């Protein structure tokens, strides 16, 4: 698929750490964020800020339900999305300006209330085939022994190439210091044998941390159980090794389409087309040479 797509490890999960030259590395780890049990407490956002010493990024009222941070960015490495969905009830239609869910299968409680909350804690996906890492010209972005993707802040020169490369709009430049920043999956904590701060702080285990193959089994169980319990709209996002980024290191259980949560429905790593792009550039370069020859061809009139 991509020039950088790594082979699977024995458990079936792709093994990007091995492709990056880590020998005898630990198991690939990641997050399974089960949004069906997220309560929107933002403990993950706070824990992340505290542990990683991420600066304040604006105290804003955005008019987006309880969301005051907007989206992931240089100084927001966990972001809780809030979506208020209301069933279409004739009396409400006139004044209520909230998305409608009349066709979405609801739980008993949601049906009675005519309303449901969607809350989801977003994070860097730590892609198997990571665009930010591929395009980084300095090697500041690197693949850790845990299979995660981390920026080395003492190397990054703030060229900004990773920013438009990321298919999820995650990584961004921090204007105050010029470099790019994103979730490290708490690389320092992992190396110390601790779980990432957000997962540690999550009171409902909506954010689960662990070896990626185990998380995928748990997620499969969970989505089946939800289907059995009458939540047919539950679906996994980012659990498939054959998707456009070779599977996410941090994947999700969602209750609606990904784009409802500001997630791309079919993300693809742009470097998948790298060979085609270099070949096209070579053809264009050859055309330029031919054009030069033509411009000077013919009799030497002037």
């Amino acid at each position, binding site marked *: 698929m991509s020039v950088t797509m790594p082979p699977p490890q024995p458990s079936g999960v792709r093994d990007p750490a091995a492709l990056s030259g880590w020998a005898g590395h630990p198991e690939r780890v990641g997050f399974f964020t089960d949004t069906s049990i997220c309560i929107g407490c933002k403990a993950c956002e706070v824990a992340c800020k505290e542990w990683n010493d991420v600066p304040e990024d604006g105290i804003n009222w955005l008019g987006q339900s309880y969301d005051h941070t907007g989206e992931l960015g240089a100084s927001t490495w966990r972001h809780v999305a809030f979506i208020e969905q209301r069933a279409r009830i004739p009396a409400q239609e006139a004044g209520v300006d909230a998305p409608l869910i009349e066709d979405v299968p609801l739980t008993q409680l949601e049906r009675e209330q005519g309303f449901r909350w969607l809350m989801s804690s977003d994070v860097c996906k730590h892609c198997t085939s990571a665009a930010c890492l591929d395009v980084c010209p300095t090697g500041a972005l690197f693949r850790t022994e845990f299979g995660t993707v981390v920026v080395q802040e003492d190397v990054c020169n703030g060229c900004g190439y990773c920013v438009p490369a990321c298919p999820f709009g995650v990584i961004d430049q921090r204007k105050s210091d010029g470099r790019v920043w994103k979730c490290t999956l708490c690389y320092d904590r992992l190396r110390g044998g601790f779980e990432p701060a957000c997962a540690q702080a999550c009171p409902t285990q909506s954010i689960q941390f662990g070896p990626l193959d185990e998380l995928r089994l748990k997620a499969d169980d969970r989505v089946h159980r939800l289907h059995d319990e009458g939540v047919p709209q539950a679906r996994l996002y980012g659990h498939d090794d054959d998707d456009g980024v070779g599977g996410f290191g941090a994947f999700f259980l969602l209750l609606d389409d990904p784009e*409802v949560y500001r997630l791309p429905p079919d993300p693809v790593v742009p470097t998948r087309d790298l060979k085609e792009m270099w070949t096209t550039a070579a053809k264009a370069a050859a055309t330029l040479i031919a054009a030069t*020859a033509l411009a000077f061809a013919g009799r030497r009139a002037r």
Partner: protein
Amino acid sequence: MSTTQERPGLVAGMDGRRRTGKGEHALVPDVEVRTYYDRPVLKQPTWKHWIPEYLFLGGLSAGSSLLAFGATLTGRRTLARRARIAAVGAIGAGTAALIADLGRPARAANMLRVAKVTSPLNVGSWLLTFYAPAAGVAAAADVFGVLPGVRTAAQVGAAVLAPGVATYTAVVFADTSLPAWHGARRELPFLFAAGAGASAGALGLLLAPAEENGPARRWAVAGALGEVAVSSLMERRLGEQGEPYRHGRAGWISKVANACALAGAAVGLRRGGRRGGALLAGALVFTGSLLERYAVMEAGKQSAAEPKYVVKAQRERLAEREREAPPA
């Protein structure tokens, strides 16, 4: 995963606004675009005006090196020398622009910490590392009339690397997730190659004496027409994804760019053999080519700012896949 077409009851846009513009109970279009409060899915490039200016200057330098090489081979001494000086000046200014755009300019040398083909920017940095000194030595040896052997080697080196310098920047843009750039990956290298020819030809028209400007004139005219042709083809093939090139700031910059290019080509064809005509044609084509770079930059930003370009294309792709292989 079910596609949105199966959800006739859902209104477009999760912020409750209707994008169809057909009233409260409008029919849902074929592929409906749902978003999170209309927020962009992708981040806009952080690149400032330096980057389109570098694209232009890099192409100008590469084109000038090729023009100088041809001029040397065909005995156009004045054109050769002036194009060579233009080449080193443009690449010097271009490199300065690149460094100025960095968040940490003092760390510019980190670009050469590694060599990796998956990073077009890294490949380009290595190209520049060899190209810029070659262009510099070629110009200096020409001006001072010294070291004929070194001069020839540097001229050949600069000419060999120039086509790469002119086109790698297209891969830098194409190798991103922005629909207007990644979608245009088949055309951008040709657009930038044409731009290199147009700008270098235009500068040749401005700098060279009329009796030596034949090749510069042909290049300026062909390059300008090439830019207009490739950008129109690109916008047409991109369809809806090409909208960012036609709308907003990118749209009007692109229109002015095309007007300059076409006017410059017309003047160059009819009056390019005379000094006045050459100057006018050169100025028009030069301006058009610079504006075209700004237009491409703006289009990328605009395509990142609108979530529909990302979501709609991906939804259509998923729907296509489901049609081909329906889920069990």
